[in-house]
């Protein structure tokens, strides 16, 4: 048994005045009786059994002293190990995601989680080993498995909040790997539980200690800036704000264009729902648009969002023997400039945003964005079988940005190779038994492959064709699959002859990244939302990292942790393995109080 606050034992000092009071002559009430003779006799009888009787006489005193002692010990927070100390391995998974920045519990959820982790650490046996892993978008091992309490305390202290969303899976993998083979083991998760189910095994005991309260938070969950169709029309800025609060709230939203305040809206939002608004901006032409919620809530990271408007036109290289329909369609693509080359070898593809290969297929394609017609690149995983005669289009991917809203069923094709695709390639047009057109995304290469020859099909004559080309170019030139998120590393390609770029984070910290020509450099310090400015030589380009995560904005505290396949880790308390004894002692105090009351009243009520 150990005491959490041994100073409370000073309360034992109360016994001194109690005893003193007891020994002070009692002021007795005088009661006249007819004769003290019988009383005298009775008392003499009592004195015969003196030692025991004297004890009985001071039973009240003994009870009172016992009561004080129990009370003092209870106040000193005694805890006892409920099971014998075993060599146990612990992994503390501390969530440092953006929702842990919420201040609905003071000072913040993360600080509270750290405090709770320290509390659990105190429960650990002297020979137990502890590993601390913090996680947000990525997991970070704060300290490897160690028996040193100071190392663990320091590791817990080092955990800093991040603006990234929560991904717990990686941390869980690290934890279960570290606990492999240990007989006594436990994973303790300190988190608000705002993440998707973990795929984990039931063998490793997992305790979930929820942290957080009821947050009051408004956050920007989506933002988009649309260029007008005509030059004299205003730009449209769409902002979506979600509110998680107990009552309806008017959330003031400010819009800054290139750093100047351009508009303020008050969005009336019902609790638990969202509201979208569209700002119209005519001048100046926006480069960086920032939306900002001017309302004090529990989370700051989702109160600001940035949008960087891409200005330059995409250069499209058409390489092929010439197809009027295709060339026309490419010329129609918005914000793009089409160039034509007879073959690929004489051109460097690096200068072009999208390369269209029409019937041309060099042996090895460098990384890039390709729209391929009339052939299948020899990429890993693609198998080309015998050609299919007159393949009929039976289905197309209606959710893919390239084929969305297109009618493709009536395309007639003379011949197409039968292909089979690896798992990560997405078929977007299919015959009854094989994919026809597919989207390819691997590394920095993105491609839409149409394996049949355009000249052997009636597709170019159909309305869907120019739309397909436009969508495909749009999809191919888009930066990445998803917008970069805080917490994820920024991959920057060194272009041309450059060997270094400078990245400045929102905090103002600058870092120069160096690498080989045409290689990727990685900027990892993306824990905060905001604008990251990439400077190449004289040219600076901002990249916006926004939270845009409704789940983190909601900040709801889960009562249980989903552990995949319906398994659930219930919320555990901090003090499971160490039993606090104060409850028992308090019960003892109550019992003694009742006993004292009884003893006292047995003297009084007959």
């Amino acid at each position, binding site marked *: 048994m150990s005491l959490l606050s041994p100073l409370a034992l000073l309360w034992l000092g109360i016994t001194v005045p109690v005893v003193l009071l007891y020994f002070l002559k*009692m002021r*007795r*009430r*005088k*009661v*006249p*009786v*007819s*004769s*003290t*003779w*019988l*009383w*005298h*006799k*009775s*008392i003499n*009888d*009592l004195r015969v059994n003196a030692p025991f009787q004297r004890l*009985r*006489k001071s039973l009240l005193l003994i009870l009172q002293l016992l009561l004080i002692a129990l009370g003092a010990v209870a106040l000193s927070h005694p805890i006892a190990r409920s099971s014998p100390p075993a060599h146990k391995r612990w992994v503390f998974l501390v969530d440092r995601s953006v929702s842990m920045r919420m201040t609905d519990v003071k000072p913040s959820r993360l600080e509270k989680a750290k405090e709770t982790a320290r509390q659990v650490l105190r429960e650990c046996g002297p020979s137990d080993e502890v590993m601390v892993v913090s996680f947000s978008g990525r997991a970070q091992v704060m300290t490897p498995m160690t028996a040193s309490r100071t190392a663990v305390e320091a590791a817990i202290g080092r955990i800093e909040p991040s603006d990234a969303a929560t991904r717990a899976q990686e941390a869980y993998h690290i934890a279960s790997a570290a606990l492999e083979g240990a007989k006594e083991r436990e994973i303790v998760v300190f988190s608000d539980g705002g993440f998707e189910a973990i795929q984990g095994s039931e063998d490793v005991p997992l305790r979930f200690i929820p942290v957080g309260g009821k947050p009051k938070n408004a956050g920007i969950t989506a933002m988009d800036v649309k260029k007008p169709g005509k030059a004299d029309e205003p730009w449209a800025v769409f902002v979506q704000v979600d509110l998680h609060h107990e009552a309806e709230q008017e959330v003031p939203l400010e819009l800054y264009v290139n750093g100047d305040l351009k508009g303020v809206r008050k969005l009336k939002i019902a609790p638990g729902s969202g509201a979208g608004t569209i700002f119209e901006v005519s001048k100046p032409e926006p480069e960086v648009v920032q939306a900002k919620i001017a309302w004090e809530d529990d989370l700051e990271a989702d109160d600001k969002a940035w949008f960087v408007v891409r200005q330059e036109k995409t250069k499209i290289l058409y390489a092929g023997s010439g197809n009027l329909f295709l060339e026309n369609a490419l010329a129609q693509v918005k914000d793009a400039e089409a160039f034509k080359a007879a073959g690929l070898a004489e051109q460097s593809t690096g200068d072009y945003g999208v390369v269209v290969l029409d019937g041309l297929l060099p042996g090895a394609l460098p990384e890039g964005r390709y729209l391929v017609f009339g052939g299948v690149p020899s990429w890993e995983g693609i198998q080309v079988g015998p050609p299919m005669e007159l393949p009929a289009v039976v289905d197309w991917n209606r959710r893919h940005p390239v084929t969305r809203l297109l009618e493709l069923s009536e395309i007639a094709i003379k011949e197409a190779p039968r292909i089979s695709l690896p798992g990560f390639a997405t078929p977007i047009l299919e015959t009854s038994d094989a994919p026809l057109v597919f989207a390819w995304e691997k590394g920095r290469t993105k491609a839409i492959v149409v394996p049949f020859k355009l000249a052997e099909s009636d597709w170019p004559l159909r309305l869907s064709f120019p739309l397909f080309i436009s969508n495909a170019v749009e999809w191919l030139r888009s930066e990445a699959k998803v917008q970069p998120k805080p917490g994820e590393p920024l991959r920057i390609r060194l272009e041309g002859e450059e060997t270094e770029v400078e990245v400045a984070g929102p905090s103002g910290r600058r870092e120069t990244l160096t690498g080989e020509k045409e290689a990727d450099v990685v900027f990892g310090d993306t824990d905060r939302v905001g604008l990251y400015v990439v400077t190449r030589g004289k040219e600076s380009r901002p990249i916006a990292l926004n939270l845009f995560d409704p789940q983190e904005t909601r900040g709801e505290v889960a009562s249980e942790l989903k552990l995949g396949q319906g398994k659930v880790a219930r919320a555990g308390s901090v003090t499971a393995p160490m039993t606090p004894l104060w409850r028992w002692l308090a019960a003892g105090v109550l019992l003694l109080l009742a006993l004292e009351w009884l003893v006292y009243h*047995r*003297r*009084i*009520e*007959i």
Partner: protein
Amino acid sequence: MKGTASLLDANLIRQLEQLELVVRRLNSGRMKGEKKSKRRGTGSEFADYRDYAQGDDPRHIDWNVYGRLDRLFLKLFHEEEDLRLAIYVDTSRSMSFGDPEKLLYAKRLAACLAYVALCNMDRVAVEAGAAGRAEQLRPLRGKRQLGAVLEFLEGLEADGATDLAAGLKQMSHRNGASGMKVVISDFLDKRGYQGALKWLLRPEDRVVLLHVLSPQEVHPDIVGDLALEDCEDGAVQEVSITAGLLRRYEQGLKALVGGLKDYCRTRGLAYHFVQTSVPLEQVVLNALRQSGVLR
């Protein structure tokens, strides 16, 4: 009649008139009364025959026997004499205790017995006292003396310590003639009762002890840490009254009552324990009749 209202009520008086004191032995009173006497004489109840001797009253010759036997026999009768009732009322200060007050109860008991005696033409003497003082009412006879008896009883006040020995000794001396002696007391005498009761141990006397205690003495309703002050001698006894102590007290009281009972049983005295909470009528009309003190 002054005081009748407070000590005896009309209803009780009517019922008392039906009663008489019972003495198991034949009495030898001084005056003719309604109790059979050992002496043969002119009573109405036949006792025996004896040979006529010269000088005997010829009116007592049984002429019918003479006619049959031709011998003179004298008819002997029990002479009916009065009973001498002496009542001792303890008026020590302890008797002023209790609710109802023990002394008042004792006075009413005494009044009842005295009235029964007076109704039966018995002689009633009342003595009262405590340590250092004694009051007495000279023997009275006849219903008309009830007023005097009640007046005397009314005038009694509780004062002084209990000294049964002195009181009973005096009573015994003053009422030397045999008869009924009634002692009404709480017997809370620190010197004990044996020394006092020995003065009553005369074979010719019918002795009745009426032990009067208040309910507060039988089951004390005091609690806690107290200083008990003896009302007679002012002695202070500090006690922490607990259930255990109360049990011991009650055991002590039981021992006192039991001791008195045993003492009386072995010496032919009548003993009655009376709690002042019990109605007087119940004691006089039932208990005392059942035990043969009254008839």
